[in-house]
C-alpha cells in the first residue's frame, strides 16, 4: 500500500486538492444560498415549515439519484458534481440558519428597532452575528457530509478522490483494488478532518468574544 501511495503521490495530492476545492467552493456557495433563504424565511415566517420540509425531503434523496437526475441537464463533468454537492450542502446550513436567525431573543430585536436600526441593520448587526455560531455548526455538518457526496460525484467524472473509490470497485479482486478503495476513503476522511479543523479556526476568528462558548 505504501508503494502504491508513493508511486502516485503527486496524482493523489492533486486529486485531494481538487476534492477539497470542489467541496469548499460548493459549501461556500451553499452557505450564501442558505443564509439568503433563511433571511427570507425569517422575514416571512410562513415559509418556515416549507423550508423545514424541503431540507428534510432533500436529505432523503440518494446522492446517486440526484446525479442521475442532473446528468441530462448539465452533462457529465464538474458542473454536475458542483451542483450536486452544493444542493446537499445547502440543506443542513439552511436548517441551522433558520433556527439561529429566529432564535435571537425577541427583546434584543425590539431593543434594536427601538434604537432606530432599520431592518437591514438589525439583520446585519444583530441577527447574523448572534446566529453565527449556530450557522457555523451547520456549515461544519455540511462540510463533512459534502466530502462524501463529492466522492459520489466522481461518478459523473467530477474531480476528486471519488475516482479512486470507483476504480477500486471496478476492479474488485484485482491487485490494487483494495489500495484504490482505501486511498480514496482514507483520503476523504483525512481531508474532512483537516477542513473541519480549519473551520473551527475560522469560527474562533469570526465569532464575537462576547458569545463564544
Amino acid at each position, binding site marked *: 500500500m505504501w508503494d502504491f501511495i508513493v508511486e502516485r503521490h503527486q496524482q493523489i495530492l492533486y486529486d485531494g486538492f481538487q476534492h477539497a476545492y470542489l467541496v469548499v467552493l460548493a459549501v461556500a456557495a451553499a452557505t450564501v444560498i442558505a443564509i439568503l433563504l433563511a433571511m427570507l424565511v425569517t422575514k416571512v415566517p410562513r415559509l418556515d415549515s416549507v423550508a423545514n420540509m424541503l431540507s428534510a425531503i432533500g436529505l432523503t434523496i440518494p446522492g446517486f439519484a440526484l446525479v442521475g437526475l442532473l446528468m441530462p441537464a448539465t452533462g457529465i463533468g464538474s458542473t454536475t458534481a458542483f451542483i450536486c454537492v452544493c444542493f446537499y450542502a445547502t440543506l443542513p446550513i439552511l436548517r441551522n440558519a433558520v433556527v439561529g436567525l429566529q432564535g435571537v431573543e425577541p427583546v434584543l430585536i425590539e*431593543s434594536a428597532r*427601538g*434604537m*432606530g*436600526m*432599520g431592518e437591514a*441593520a438589525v439583520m446585519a448587526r444583530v441577527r447574523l452575528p448572534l446566529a453565527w455560531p449556530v450557522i457555523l455548526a451547520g456549515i461544519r455538518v455540511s462540510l463533512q457530509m459534502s466530502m462524501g457526496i463529492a466522492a459520489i460525484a466522481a461518478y459523473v467524472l467530477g474531480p476528486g478522490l471519488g475516482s479512486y473509490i470507483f476504480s477500486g470497485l471496478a476492479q474488485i479482486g484485482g491487485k490494487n483494488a483494495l489500495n484504490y478503495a482505501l486511498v480514496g476513503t482514507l483520503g476523504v476522511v483525512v481531508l474532512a478532518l483537516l477542513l473541519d479543523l480549519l473551520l473551527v479556526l475560522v469560527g474562533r476568528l469570526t465569532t464575537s468574544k*462576547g458569545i463564544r462558548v
Partner: protein
Amino acid sequence: MTTTPTHGADDVSGIEIELDEVVKRYPGQKMAAVDSLSLTVPAGEMVIFVGPSGCGKTTSLKMINRLIRPTSGTIRLGGEDISKRGADELRRHIGYVIQGGSLFPHMTVATNIEIVPKLLGWDKARIAERVDELLDLVGLEPDRYRDRYPRELSGGQQQRVGVARGLAADPPVILMDEPFGAVDPITRQRLQDELLGIQRELHKTIVMVTHDIDEAIKLGDRVLILQEGGRIAQYDTPEMILAAPANDFVDDFVGSGSALKQLTLSRVSEIELRHPTTATVGEPSREAIARAEAAGDGSLVILDSRRRPVAWRFLREVARRDTVLDGDREKLVTLDERATLNDALDVMLASSYGGAIVCGRRDQYLGVADFESVTDHMRTVEKAAAEEVAADTGRAEP
C-alpha cells in the same frame, strides 16, 4: 426641535410629550388595549406609568416611539406629530431602555453605547468621548469597562450600561420599560437612586413603565395609574396619590394603606421612642428585676458601661443569675435612628420583644421603637396629609 420648558428652569433638556385620544385596538380583540388615552407629560419631568398587567401601560409607552402604531389618535413630541416622521429617524431621537438593559451580547460595552450615535453619523472622536462621558455618568470606570462584554458584567452593571445606551445620543425623551425589573432589591434601590441623581442633572423627559407602585412613588414627579384598557385611574404627584386616591381602584392598587407607603418617607428619628427599664452589665439581677416589675416591664434592655446596648432579655432569663451578664453586641439587631420606618417595622416583626432597639451615634442607646410609636406617627402623617388635601382640592381636580 422645539423645547417647551414648563418649570421655567433653563436647564431642562427634555421636551413635552402629548398623547391625544390615543387608541390601540388589536385585531380580533373586543376590548381596546388602550382606549382613548389623553395626557401630557411636561418637559423635563419623570412620569411613571403603573398598573396591573394588561392595563396597557407598556402599549402606551411603545406607541410613543412607534414600536406599536396607534389605531387612532395623535402623539406629539415637543408639539410635533410623530406620525409625520420616519419611525427609525424618530427612534434615534428617543432613548429606549428596557429590562435588564438587554445589551447585545456580541458587542462590547462601548459598541453597545455607540449604536445610536453611529446611526446618527457622529464622527469617531466625538463618539469615543461620549462613551467615556456616559460611563462616568452611570458610575462605571471607562478604562475598566469600555471593552468588556455584557456577560462579564453583573446585572446591575448591565442595567447601568443600558441606561448609558439610552442616553447616548442625548435624546430629549427617554422611555424606560421596567428598567429595574431584573435586578435584586438592593441593586434596584441603588439604581433608582442613581437615576434620580442623573435626572436631577439632565432634566430629560422620562416616561417609565413599572408594575411596582413603590418604585413609581419613589421615582415619579408624577404617577399615572392605569386601569384596564388604558383608562386613567389617576394622574398626579405621588404625594397626592397617597393622600387622596381618586377611586377604589387606586386605593386598592396603592395597596396596604397610603400611610404604609409613607413609611419609606419617614425616619426612625421622627418617631417617639419608648424608654423601657434598662440594666447595666454587672449590677445585681435582683435590683434590676425589681425596677422592671415596678415599671411593669417584662424584659430588660442590657447596656454596657458605655451605654451601648448588648442584649435584650426577659426577666426570667435575668433571674437565673445573680448579676446581669454581658452579651454579644454583634448578635443584637439594632436600628440606626436614620433608618426608615419601613426598615424599623422589619426589625420589629422579627423581634420577640415587640420592638426594636434604636441607637444613635457610636451605638449609643436611644430607646425602643415599637408598633405603637410607628402607628402614632402614621396617624399624624395621615392627618397632615388630609389637611393638605383639603387645602389642595382645587389642584387635585383634573
